[in-house]
């Protein structure tokens, strides 16, 4: 466990979460959510939860994002907030 990495990931996670919630475009939001998930996954690897991180990488950063993008292609990327 390296605390510098820890801090960095935590900060990045918070930033990407805020960005993904606030960005005014759903596609960007989806991508940022994927990034958030991936950072989260890194955080967990760094904490030693490899299985969870693996799952999150497959699901959160992979499949979820794919769902989301497919969904946005079917609907719209417009958002007002």
């Amino acid at each position, binding site marked *: 466990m390296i605390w510098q990495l820890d801090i960095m990931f935590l900060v990045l996670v918070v930033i990407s979460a805020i960005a993904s919630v606030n960005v005014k475009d759903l596609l960007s939001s989806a991508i940022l959510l994927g990034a958030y998930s991936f950072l989260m996954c890194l955080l967990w690897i760094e904490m030693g939860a490899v*299985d969870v991180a693996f799952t999150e990488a*497959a699901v959160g950063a992979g499949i979820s994002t794919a*769902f989301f993008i*497919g969904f946005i292609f*079917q*609907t719209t990327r417009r958002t007002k907030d």
Partner: protein
Amino acid sequence: MKERYPDVTIETVCRLLIPPIQLFGLYVIAHGHYSPGGGFQGGCILGASFIMMFIAYDIGEVKRRMREKLNTILCATGVLIYAGIGILCLVLGANYLDYGILHQILPAYPAKARALGTFGIEIGVGITVMSVMISIFLNIGTAGEHEGEPE
């Protein structure tokens, strides 16, 4: 994503990547006892390979490889395998999901029988997760408007 991508690069890369991805998925399911991974992760990876196929080709290709009805049946089969192994334990006289009892029918001592039982359910989970991921993506990615027999 309604029309097919004419991009030859994507198609080729995907064609190259899909078999190793699927192989890796199987490996993850099978090697869950010894390394990170297991049914769920492996199932996701297998599902992802089909999603990739969807992206690279089109829905027709996916449905040709994995018919929708087959997918639904697989979806059910996975859970059925899981629950069925539990029932097997029940039939053999132990509590539900008590794989230790499987040593009666498997050539293994109880702890090993447990490992094998675990392996069985990992396969079940893997199948279910894969087919559910495919089906969710097919339905979300096309808004349910795709052609063909629904059942």
